[in-house]
């Protein structure tokens, strides 16, 4: 057998190269129908949720009535969850938090150590001291 194959694993997803799938797949709004800390989220749900959900058809929305402080929970494609407590926030502030969860990638927050991170090889290749002309090589 002249050429054999090696299993290098499956192809790697590149979201946005072909199709783009929004990482946020579900938003859950939990509010209290009685508590004063839920005033803002109640107004948001009443006034803006309809429009917000129509603007984001790819996200599943769930509204839960439960006692306690209100929270917004985002579920992401990578299986992670992000939870933001929106107690005592106004409706517009709740909308900011909802937008934040919608736009999040779902990845854990981490400091970017390199300015560029890529799954592709560098287009210039790796510099080699042996492929420069003889007169420019380092002489010991």
């Amino acid at each position, binding site marked *: 057998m002249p*050429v054999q*194959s*090696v299993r290098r694993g499956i192809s790697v*997803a590149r979201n946005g190269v072909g199709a783009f799938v929004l990482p946020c797949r579900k938003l859950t709004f939990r509010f209290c129908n009685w508590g004063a800390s839920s005033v803002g989220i109640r107004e948001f749900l009443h006034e803006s949720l309809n429009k917000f959900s129509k603007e984001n058809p*790819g996200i599943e929305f*769930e509204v839960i009535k439960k006692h306690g402080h209100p929270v917004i929970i985002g579920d992401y*494609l990578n299986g992670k969850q992000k939870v933001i407590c929106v107690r005592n926030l106004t409706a517009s502030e709740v909308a900011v938090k909802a937008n934040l969860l919608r736009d999040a990638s779902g990845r854990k927050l981490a400091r970017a150590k390199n300015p560029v991170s890529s799954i592709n090889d560098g287009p210039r290749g790796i510099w080699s001291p042996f*492929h420069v002309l003889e007169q420019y090589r380092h002489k010991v």
Partner: protein
Amino acid sequence: MSLRSRAPINRRISASLSATKILQVQQTRHARHASTLYNVQGFVQINQPVSAVNLSAPKRKLFISASSRSTPSPFFSSYVRVSHSFKTKNLAIHSSSRPNSTLATSEPDVIADEPAGISEFPTSEVAKCSALVALRARLELGASFDLTTLAQALNCPSSELASRFPSNESLSELGARLLDFYVSEFIICSYPRLPMEVIKEALWSYCGDDALTSVGRHWGIERERPQITTVGKGARLIKEQRLVDYFGVLKYGRMVVGRSNGLTEYVDPVNEDGTERGVERYSTAMSNFVRSVIGGICLHNGRDVAKEFIFNHILSRKLDISKLFRFEQPTRELSRLCSREHFAPPISRMIAETGRFSQGSVYVVGIYSGSNMLGSAEGRSIAEAETRAAINALKSWYLYSPHSKLPSTTEGKAEADFQQLYVDPGQVIV
């Protein structure tokens, strides 16, 4: 035995081991019961009615029936045997798709009146499933793609629901053919000289089960939750799901039921009465779902849209084909290639070297055919550099890419559009 000192439910079961008896337990206390059942000697079956299947389930109840091991009830459709931690004791867990589970008995004749036949997905119910509606929008399938087809794509033939609603078997077959055609066309037209083994590997990397499972996960597909999450000390029953929510998750017969203490528990693929139980791997079920979506797009929106979908979701993924090669005799293969193609025989020449008598020597070798350099590489020894150079030369031959137009782009158009493609004489035989 210490059985008497345990929870009352144990005593009741141990007392009724010889004869089949059904005990009703309120589900609010299920967690404790599920964990204490392991101490019961004999064959214990827990029957939880799935109200997801049963729209008219009156009240959540947990049914526990105990029977001797030699007379398993044919009523129970699936169960798990847990035998790693207690040698003579088995626990059976199952969920029944029987609509009227409240009348559960172990009499075989009761099964006869189980509703037979498969009905269509209820359109109005499916439209209420928010997960399905969101999924359709997320994948930009358009309104012409029926939600019932999406619900069908999520219903694997091994699932409990497959006995009531159509499964994705036919859709996934169609999707698999389309995927195979377009992906193999893409690979072979992009790299016409690829050896067969590498083509197969590239196909697996693009549209094998594992790759499609990754695609499905990337679409945010959840799977049906098991009736019991963990087997063992922390065993607990899960709340039932509504049928509407059930439509939006991937449903299949689970092969792996639980993992505890580093052991994986599998379902017995054969029932006690010898019939086969439908079980699938997660990757099989998920990949078949992705194939079914592609098949559904072909049926609802046409083959061109299906092709575009495959290019956007499957072929847009990154795969480095040059890393899939493994050469056994590269220098010999290269010389065979040169003689076949009537090139001058390949000769290795040293381009540069350093530290020949040191520990860190580096050699750069190029392989030349006449005055043309076919490939070059560095190595710690001369032989290594020569081999690497031959591999580079062979890869540059096999990875020839003419960027030709795919034949499928000219489908339905005038014959003049079609350009004949490069056909390779085949890989080098050593």
